[in-house]
């Protein structure tokens, strides 16, 4: 079974530029998460999708971050314009999910490391 795929693995940009990350979850997984992991910290939830609907985006900086999962499968996270403090690893995770929420294991991709200069 293929795991969670993320690209690109590494990205270096200058502040005020834009960047997009892509995630393809495990086939059949209804719930998709984007986490931001700053060096030395735990993953912080940015947005959670259930199929193509948003369950939680309370910690997403909506003035610069956006995410979509149009067909309920793969997802894109965009940052525009980037700031220095956005330097982090962006982790995508998926789970089986289902109605009423998810109680099971999260499967993580290897992450996309962003460096903003």
């Amino acid at each position, binding site marked *: 079974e293929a795991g*969670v795929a993320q690209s690109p693995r590494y990205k270096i940009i200058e502040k005020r530029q834009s960047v997009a990350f892509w995630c393809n979850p495990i086939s059949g997984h209804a719930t998709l*998460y984007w*986490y931001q992991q700053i060096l030395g*910290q*735990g*993953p*912080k*939830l940015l947005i*959670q999708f259930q199929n193509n609907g948003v*369950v*939680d985006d309370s910690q997403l900086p909506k003035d610069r971050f956006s995410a979509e999962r149009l067909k309920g499968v793969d997802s894109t996270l965009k940052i525009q314009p980037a700031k220095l403090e956005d330097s982090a690893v962006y*982790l995508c*995770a998926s789970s089986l999910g289902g109605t009423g*929420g*998810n*109680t*099971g*294991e*999260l499967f*993580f*991709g*290897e*992450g996309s490391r962003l460096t903003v200069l």
Partner: protein
Amino acid sequence: AQSVTQPDIHITVSEGASLELRCNYSYGATPYLFWYVQSPGQGLQLLLKYFSGDTLVQGIKGFEAEFERSQSSFNLRKPSVHWSDAAEYFCAVWGSGTYKYIFGTGTRLKVLA
């Protein structure tokens, strides 16, 4: 509010020694608790989880954890650490009322040969 605290940022143990990583949670009802491990440059991998039932749960790689409701804790243990266990360990809680999956700040484990 739902939260997870891992009080130890770094822990160093000698190979073959026992290990305990601490995790305390805050949640109003019975939580769903998890331990994940992250090797450098990798995503997180599930070690074990607690939903209900037996409070001592067994996981992969010889790890176990005990849910103690009175202490609001879910500490991870291993009787004998191997050099390959060096990694960062994260405790997480999922709330059935909030549907949020919250991670602690992590404990970085160093293993001395």
